[in-house]
């Protein structure tokens, strides 16, 4: 078998995620009477197994920006958390060339601290030394563009300002693998331009990015490749413009209530895609150095 001469950054190999969650759905009530009584006593609702991801495989290379499309609950955020290593898949594995950095909407910053203190804390959490954090500070502030608000506690920020600050902190570490979970949706036009520039620079420096976005338009503008997820499965993994277009057509049919046309568009897209499975070959690159060995 011939190996492509490309710099592999992320390998997701047949990843499954399932978790149990409480449900008030009466059709999934426990069958046994004892279980029902036990649930009643402790005040718990019966649980159902939710299949968040069902067999996702992909390879991402340096310089790629992968847009992840899908409805709410299609598994986009779960996929990003699994790639980042923050959540463990129930089956399958994720390999990466460096430690991925996930930028989420609910990244932990302390609301009682000022923007300035949060920048420092966030940089330290990503493993910077105090000197590095101090050196990164001006850049973070410039990218976030908060003005005098950096000296105010973060709880006084609007959601857009908070998102900008989080993005700027995550970018400060110059991660080769950056995962963004809808964090850019809230920025204004000026910030959008600055953030796109920053991300392009990182891609140019042999990085790869995954973006969860709601709009197919953003995928066309910012991504080189797109993945359409539906109910935890991959519908189509292909070039950004084509996948985004198909997704947009499907979503429009759904919005208009044309279920038949939507199903038809979906089936077409699904048939265009392919079931990817990976064949992992280890250790051909001799210069490989374990990440933790340094």
């Amino acid at each position, binding site marked *: 078998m011939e190996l492509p001469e490309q710099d592999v950054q992320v390998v997701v190999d047949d990843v499954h995620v399932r978790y149990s969650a409480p449900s008030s759905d009466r059709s999934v009530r426990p069958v046994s009477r004892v279980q029902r009584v036990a649930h009643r006593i402790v005040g718990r609702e019966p649980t159902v197994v939710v299949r968040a991801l069902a067999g996702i495989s992909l390879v991402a290379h340096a310089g790629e920006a992968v847009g992840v499309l899908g*409805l709410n609950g299609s598994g986009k955020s779960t996929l990003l958390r699994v790639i980042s290593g923050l*959540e463990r898949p129930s089956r399958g594995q994720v390999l990466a060339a460096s430690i991925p950095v996930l930028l989420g909407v609910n990244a932990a910053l302390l609301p009682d601290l000022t923007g300035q203190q949060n920048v420092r804390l966030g940089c330290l959490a990503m*493993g910077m030394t105090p000197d590095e954090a101090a050196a990164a500070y001006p850049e973070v502030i410039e990218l976030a563009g908060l003005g005098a608000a950096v000296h105010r506690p973060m709880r006084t920020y609007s959601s857009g300002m908070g998102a900008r600050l989080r993005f700027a902190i995550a970018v400060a570490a110059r991660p080769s693998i950056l995962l963004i979970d809808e964090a850019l949706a809230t920025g204004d036009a000026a910030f959008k331009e600055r953030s796109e520039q920053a991300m392009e620079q990182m891609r140019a420096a042999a990085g790869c990015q995954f973006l969860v976005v709601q709009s197919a338009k953003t995928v066309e503008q910012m991504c080189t490749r797109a993945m359409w997820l539906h109910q935890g499965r991959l519908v189509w993994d292909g070039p950004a413009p084509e996948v985004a277009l198909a997704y947009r057509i499907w979503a429009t049919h759904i919005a208009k209530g044309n279920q038949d046309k939507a199903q038809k568009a979906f089936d077409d897209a699904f048939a265009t895609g392919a079931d990817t499975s990976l*064949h992992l*070959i280890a250790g051909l690159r001799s210069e490989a150095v374990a990440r933790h060995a340094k």
Partner: protein
Amino acid sequence: MSTTTFAGHTDQTNVPAQRPERTPLRAKKLVPVDCGGLEPVANRPSLDEYLHMTWQRRHFIWADARARTLSESRRFLLGTVWLVLRPVLDASVYLVVFGLLLKSNRGVENFLGYLVVGVFLFRFTSGAINAGSRSIVSGKAMVRSFSFPRIALPVAEVTRQVLRFMPTLAAMLVLIVLIPPGARLSWRWLLLPVVVALQVVLIAGLVLLTSRMVAKVPDLTQVISLLNRFWMYGSGVMYSFERFTDNQTVLAVVRLNPMYQVLDMSRDCLLYARTPALWSWVVLVVWAALALAAGLVYFWRGEESYGTS
């Protein structure tokens, strides 16, 4: 919500026993990947590597502990003043009840001093373990946003508790000097930091043990506060075991309790101008070392489990 589905099956919520049938038209693609130089994300490093990574995050641990202490006190009008005021008010409760109302010394020399030392030092242990055991649960947002050795969270919580305890400790020392008959300064006061340091090591070990357990079974927080209560009565906080019983077996067992030794040794140094016995040091050092070692290994072995929902 759409009703669009994959051909061949309808519902994803309840996992079907077998995998759904796929549309036959769909192509299969086998992609060869050279995964040399790639590493699994979220794999657990070896213990010494883990400790090394934790050491690299020491600045984060310190900044996080300080930031949370400050943000906690910012919620109150008097702010950091409460760090000193609260323990003083706590002590005044005991002084009023035992010193003015009951007027009982229960056969203990300088009983009010005895009580203040016992209450202040024990509350440090129980408070730190209560807060520390919840550190993974309450830091869930952090765990799911950043990748760092998870041990940073309980360690930062213990650090925070130590920071908060410093004004309390100062208040305690002032109180035992002021309350009659009053403790007198001696060189043995210099041994107190050593005793408190061993106490902190003991606490850290127990926090590491309990925080992994609580991360798995949140209900254990209830059990932990109950055990803390038991431990308090077994440590001679408000009374002296020697006055209660002559049973040597009971006393021997009590003397194996590390918190009993922390209180006893601190009182010896501060109040009674006695140098703690060698046996007391041995008991405390062994317990602290055991707790820390067991806590480290136990917490480290659960490293991959803290992010799962």
